[in-house]
């Protein structure tokens, strides 16, 4: 008799499906990494510092290769390595704060989990080369199918971010913290209308509820139809109201890991 736990593990570690969703994640994450880090690594800023210059060159080579999907696995591992050095060595150890931001850490970790996905099998130069090499042969590369169990890693990553963000905000004074943030950014020390406090209180309660809902609800496929739009609207609001930079778009992009790879495949086929 099979133990239910092992059956569950096997079911989640043996998923052969379309690789198009992994490819979209690959391309999207590279763009987000450029948006988050590239400005600090352009030649203009790094030329007089050999270490940083070398790091910048590697950053752009690996990310460029990963974006077009050339030697995808190699470039993915190289890029993940570079990003983790930037976040944990230069950022955390050497206290270079532009690299320790949460959006940056999230991108670095997501690109690390991407190493376990066959993201080069779709929308990539690798696929194009393989296709022209094995023309007229029934090569497996043509089918854009691969082991996509690592989408689960990205799903867990998203859930962990939501869960611990919710935990962090689950205290009685959170509405007052939100007042501080909004007053600092918009209203100043003298709140123009006292009723705003009640509205901010409602927003704070709603924020925590949405975060808990997204933590668990995204795993329920039937809920995607209404929960994902709520999540997207939530992130758009956060993006517009607070300086969260790439965080919102990264989370929205990572929602793709929750979608059925088959649905993503046919969506791109149709468009």
């Amino acid at each position, binding site marked *: 008799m099979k133990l239910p736990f092992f059956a569950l593990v096997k079911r989640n570690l043996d998923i052969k499906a379309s690789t198009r969703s992994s490819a979209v994640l690959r391309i999207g994450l590279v763009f987000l990494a450029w948006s988050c880090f590239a400005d600090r690594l352009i030649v203009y800023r790094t030329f007089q510092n050999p270490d940083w210059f070398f790091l910048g060159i590697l950053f752009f080579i690996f990310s460029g290769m990963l974006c077009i999907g050339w030697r995808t696995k190699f470039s993915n591992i190289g890029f993940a390595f570079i990003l983790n050095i930037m976040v944990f060595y230069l950022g955390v*150890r050497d206290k270079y704060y532009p690299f320790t931001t949460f959006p940056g850490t999230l991108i670095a970790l997501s690109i690390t989990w991407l190493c376990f996905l066959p993201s080069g099998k779709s929308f990539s130069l690798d696929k194009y080369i393989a296709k022209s090499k094995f023309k007229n042969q029934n090569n497996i590369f043509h089918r854009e199918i691969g082991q996509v169990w690592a989408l689960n890693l990205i799903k867990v990553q998203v859930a*962990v971010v939501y869960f611990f963000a919710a935990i*962090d905000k689950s205290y009685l004074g959170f*509405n007052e913290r939100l007042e501080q943030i909004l007053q600092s950014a918009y209203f*100043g*020390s*003298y709140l123009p209308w006292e009723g705003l406090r009640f509205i901010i209180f409602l927003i704070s309660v709603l924020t925590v509820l949405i975060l808990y809902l997204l933590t668990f609800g995204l795993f329920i496929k039937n809920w995607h139809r209404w929960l994902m739009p709520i999540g997207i609207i939530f992130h758009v609001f956060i993006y517009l109201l607070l300086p*969260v930079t790439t*965080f919102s778009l990264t989370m929205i992009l990572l929602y793709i890991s929750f979608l059925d790879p088959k649905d993503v495949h046919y969506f791109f086929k149709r468009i």
Partner: protein
Amino acid sequence: MLIGPVSRQFLGSTNKYLRPWRMYSGYGRNICDVKYYLTENNKDFVSLDPYEFMKSDDWMDTPKKIKNLRNPKQVMLKAKKMCKLIPEGQFLYVNAKCGQTRKGWKIIIDNRKPFCKRKKNDFKDTISK
């Protein structure tokens, strides 16, 4: 993925390499919330619109530097300035609280007793001196 937030947020670890998912917890803490009240008899309080004393039409108009009091020191200075601007014979009550990291407001000045009173003969005293 999990070790960082669990150890930092649940177990209280301070290892800086283990990253918590604690976003923007420090943002916006350097702001104070201030309210002014006027009274003549310590019974009937009138909420004061501070923008009337700033030569601004409203809060949208006022420069950020003026409307954002960042710390208790700035709050005290502003309140003392307000004391000189209020009508004669009135008491000024101040209710001020400032932001803190990962917590609600911290009360700096409460309105249990008047912050100051402008005497009726303030102006005459100044002339005679």
